[in-house]
């Protein structure tokens, strides 16, 4: 599996480490904190997810990938996509 880093180009997934679903937002207060920390949609299909390009440009990127096929649909820098 190769992931398209917006800066470095296509790179082997081995260069990245995985954080998971980019969707959950940390809530301001305690309300919703349990959901944020523990609950996941865990979709079978496209997911927007956070990867860290550790052995590359050292940026967090958001990759859109289909969990059923591992097909990658695109990526952006996390800070630019507001993740």
């Amino acid at each position, binding site marked *: 599996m190769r992931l398209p880093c917006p*800066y470095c*180009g296509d*790179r082997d997934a*081995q260069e990245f480490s995985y954080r998971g679903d980019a969707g959950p937002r940390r809530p301001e207060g305690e309300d919703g904190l349990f959901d944020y920390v523990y609950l996941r949609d865990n979709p079978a299909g496209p997911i927007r997810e956070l990867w860290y390009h550790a*052995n590359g*440009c050292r*940026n967090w990127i958001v990759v859109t990938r289909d969990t059923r096929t591992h097909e990658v649909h695109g990526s952006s820098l996390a800070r630019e996509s507001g993740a």
Partner: protein
Amino acid sequence: MAEHLIHSEQEGWALATVMARRAVGPAAVGAALELELRDEPVAVSNGAIRAIGTGPGAWLVIDTEPDHGFADALQDRLEGLASVSDQSSGYAVFRLSGAGARTALQRGAAIDFHPDVFAPGSVATTAIAHIGAIVWQVDDSPTYDVAVFRSLSGSFRHWLEETAAAL
């Protein structure tokens, strides 16, 4: 045929990482350094210093014939624009050249070094034999420079020698 790969370690270079502050673009950093900087994995030079693009707003800046206080001088020029940290002892830089240089790199890194996609001036921050490495092509003889953390340079040299012997 080991003679096809010539490798040596660069001595006496000064290196520093330059990271742009939030909302400061590459043009502003470049203007302060008299370099045409872009947010792309390319190497640019103005004759005096060279900047290797390692990430958006991040460069490895190199002076191959440095004066004393290279990083401090850089910091003065980039005041308010970017953070500078001296890496002269942090990184070791290896030079690979000769007909076997491309093949050797190809055996260590999972990226394409074919001249159509990786030419003089191209840069890749990647891993070679699991060792984090910044690779840039110097000329099309071809010659490459590879910067690795100095604490891993022993392992890198080991990989280089093994690879050269097996070419």
